[in-house]
C-alpha cells in the first residue's frame, strides 16, 4: 500500500491552520472539479484532493494522520504501525463517496465505518431499505448511436460481505445501447443498482452516455459535423464528390463558387431518433502543392488569367495609408 502525503496533495505545510487547509481545498477544488475543469487528469486530481481534505479538515483524523510522522514520502510502501487506531474515537460519519478513496485511507480510517455498517446490518432485522442507485459512464462510438450496439461493461461495486467488511465486487453486464442515444443521456436499468436491505428492492443503475472522440466527426446534440476538403477547381466549378457519414458514403453535389467554411446540410443524417439530427458538411479548400515545375507553371497561368483578382480588396478601405 502506498503512503499518501495529504499535505503535499493540498499544497500546504504540515503546520497549516484549519483555515489554510480550507482555503487550499476551495481553490484546488474549483480548479480540478471534473464538472468545471477540462484539464487532463482533473478527475483523478479531484479525488485525491477530496480524500486529503476529508482527513485534514477533521482535527481528529488529522491528528491520527500526523501521528504517523513526517518521515514518509508519497508513494512509499506503507504498513500501519502496530496497535494503530486504538486510541482514537472516530465519531465523524463517512462521506458519501467513500468507495472512491484509496486503500491507504481505508486502512487508516474506514475500520470504524465498516464496523458500524456491520452493526447496522446485524440489527437490521425488520429494517427494509431500498438499495442505492449506482451510476456509471459508458463510452460509445458515434457509429453505435447510429446503429445501436451491445456493450459489455465491467463495473466495480462496493459491497458489504458476510463479515461486515467492505469488498469490491466486479460485475460484468451486457447492455443494449439503443439506436439514437446522445451524449449526456442516461439509460436507466431498473434493479441493477445495489441490493436493498431486508425486503427493500435493489436500486437502479444509471448509465450516462458519452462519445469517444472521433477522428473525423464532431457532435453537437443531435447534429453531426464533418469537414470536407475540396480542390480549388471543385469549389469553383462545382463537383460531385463522396462525403463520409457515420452511415456510409453519400454522393454530394458541390455547387459552383462554394466558399470555404460553407455548411451543406444533409437533413436527417445526424443522430437518428423521433426528430433525427442533421449532418453538416463543412467545406474546406485545399491547395495542391506547388512543388514541381509543372505545378508552379500552372499557378503562374492562373495568376496571369486572374491578373485583376485581389483577394484583399476589402481590406484597403479600413487601412490607413
Amino acid at each position, binding site marked *: 500500500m502506498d503512503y499518501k502525503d495529504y499535505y503535499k496533495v493540498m499544497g500546504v505545510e504540515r503546520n497549516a491552520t484549519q483555515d489554510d487547509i480550507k482555503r487550499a481545498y476551495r481553490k484546488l477544488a474549483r480548479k480540478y472539479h471534473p464538472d468545471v475543469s477540462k484539464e487532463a487528469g482533473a478527475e483523478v486530481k479531484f479525488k485525491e484532493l477530496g480524500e486529503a481534505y476529508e482527513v485534514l479538515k477533521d482535527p481528529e483524523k488529522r491528528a491520527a494522520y500526523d501521528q504517523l510522522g513526517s518521515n514518509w514520502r508519497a508513494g512509499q510502501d506503507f504498513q500501519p504501525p502496530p496497535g494503530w487506531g486504538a486510541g482514537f474515537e472516530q465519531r465523524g460519519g463517512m462521506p458519501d463517496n467513500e468507495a472512491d478513496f484509496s486503500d491507504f485511507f481505508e486502512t487508516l480510517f474506514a475500520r470504524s465505518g465498516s464496523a458500524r455498517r456491520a452493526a447496522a446490518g446485524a440489527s437490521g432485522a425488520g429494517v427494509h431499505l431500498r438499495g442505492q442507485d449506482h451510476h456509471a459512464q459508458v463510452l460509445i462510438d458515434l457509429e453505435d448511436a447510429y446503429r445501436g450496439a451491445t456493450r459489455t461493461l465491467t463495473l466495480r461495486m462496493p459491497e458489504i460481505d458476510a463479515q461486515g467488511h467492505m469488498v469490491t465486487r466486479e460485475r460484468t*453486464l451486457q447492455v443494449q445501447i439503443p439506436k439514437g442515444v446522445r451524449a449526456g443521456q442516461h439509460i436507466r436499468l431498473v434493479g441493477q443498482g445495489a441490493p436493498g436491505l431486508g425486503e427493500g428492492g435493489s436500486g437502479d443503475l444509471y448509465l450516462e452516455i458519452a462519445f469517444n472522440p472521433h477522428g473525423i466527426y464532431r457532435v453537437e446534440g443531435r447534429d453531426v459535423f464533418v469537414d470536407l476538403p475540396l480542390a480549388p477547381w471543385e469549389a469553383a466549378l462545382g463537383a460531385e464528390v463522396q462525403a463520409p457519414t457515420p452511415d456510409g458514403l453519400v454522393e454530394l453535389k458541390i455547387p459552383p463558387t462554394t466558399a470555404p467554411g460553407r455548411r451543406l446540410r444533409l437533413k436527417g443524417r445526424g443522430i437518428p431518433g423521433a426528430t433525427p439530427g442533421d449532418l453538416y458538411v463543412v467545406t474546406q479548400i485545399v491547395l495542391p502543392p506547388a512543388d514541381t515545375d509543372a505545378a508552379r507553371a500552372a499557378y503562374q497561368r492562373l495568376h496571369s488569367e486572374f491578373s485583376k483578382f485581389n483577394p484583399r480588396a476589402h481590406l484597403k478601405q479600413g487601412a490607413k495609408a
Partner: protein
Amino acid sequence: MSTFDTTTPLRGIVLEEQVDISIDDLCAVCRVERTQIVHLVEEGVIEPLPAMRSAAPCAQWRFSGETLSRARRAVRLQRDLELNAAATALVLDLLDQIDALRRGAQV
C-alpha cells in the same frame, strides 16, 4: 467474485425528453432532499415540465429525463464546492456559455 450474465443483453430505458420523472425520482438519483431540488428550481437551474409549473405543489412536478444530467451536475458542484443554489445557477450558465464558445471555435 465476478458474475457474468451471458444471457440476453439488458435493455434499459433511455431518459430523454419523452420520458418524464418525478421530483422523488430526481431526489433518489441525486441523493438529496426535496428542499434542495426545490431550491434549484427556484433559482432556475432546472425546470419542471411546463404543464406542471404553474402553482402545482412540488410533489406533482415532473421533469424531463434530460434534466437529470443537469441536476446531478448541480448537486455535485454544490456539494464539492460548497455553493448555494444561486452560485450554482451562475456556474452552470457560465459553463454552458464556455461550451458554446468552444464548439463555435471548433465548428
